[in-house]
């Protein structure tokens, strides 16, 4: 896969913006920003709240905004369709079973020094690296 060189500025700025969003979510709504959790709540009518919809729409909106008015977002998918389906099922099911994902556990949980999240993050990082090693 050919890719533009690593840009530490883009990485750090992007990460800081993510962090800012997460901190402001706690400051304003008192909630952690676990995207798998927010999305899964929308799949159950009883637990879907307005802010869940608004947040997800915000995610979609950011993509539309940048892609349409700034520059096309580079997305280099590396997998064939059948594997995308398998991957999606695993990510969806796994995030629910673990009650979190890269944002919920990886950012919010680890930032709170939650041992549960630290463990989850270590496990999914390892699993991800092992999987790439075996599959790609």
């Amino acid at each position, binding site marked *: 896969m050919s890719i533009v060189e690593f840009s530490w500025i883009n990485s750090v700025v992007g990460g800081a913006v993510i962090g800012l969003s997460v901190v402001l979510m706690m400051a304003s709504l008192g909630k952690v920003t676990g995207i798998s959790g927010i999305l899964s709540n929308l*799949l159950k009518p009883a637990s879907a709240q307005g802010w869940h919809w608004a*947040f997800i*729409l915000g995610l979609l909106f950011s993509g539309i905004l940048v892609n349409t008015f700034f520059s096309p977002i580079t997305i280099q998918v590396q997998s064939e369709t059948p594997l995308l389906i398998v991957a999606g099922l*695993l990510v969806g099911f796994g995030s629910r079973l673990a009650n979190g994902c890269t944002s919920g556990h990886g950012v919010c949980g680890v*930032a709170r020094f939650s041992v549960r999240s630290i463990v*989850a993050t270590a496990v*999914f990082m390892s699993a991800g*690296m092992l999987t790439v090693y075996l599959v790609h």
Partner: protein
Amino acid sequence: MKKIVAAFVLGSLFGLGLIQSEMVNPARVLGFLDVSRQWDPTLAFVMAAALLITALGYRVVLSNDKPWFEAGFSVPTNRVIDARLIVGAALFGMGWGVAGLCPGPALVGVATLNTDIAVFVLAMIAGMIAFDYIAPRLKS
């Protein structure tokens, strides 16, 4: 209403961060998870920056009595490390390692009308629904 606006703005901000850091590009994520070839440290730097801001920010914010628009904070209290957590994280990691996609970046990517991303997102939703169906049958 304030909550809805706040959530929308914060979702947009989060998405902008994902786009800026290129976490929406599976190739970038897979480059980080690929330890045997040319390692791409992007995700590490993104995560480090996000963690630093969040750790410091949470300390400040959580020292307040309450959030701005809610009666109290909803910080997760579950501390249990069990098979569910480990297996769930492992399955999640496997899926992440196959596609280089996870919920947030995939949802942002949907906006580009990329059909591969759409397939992933639909499968991810199916996986979540499957869990909700199976969960009551799982031993806790």
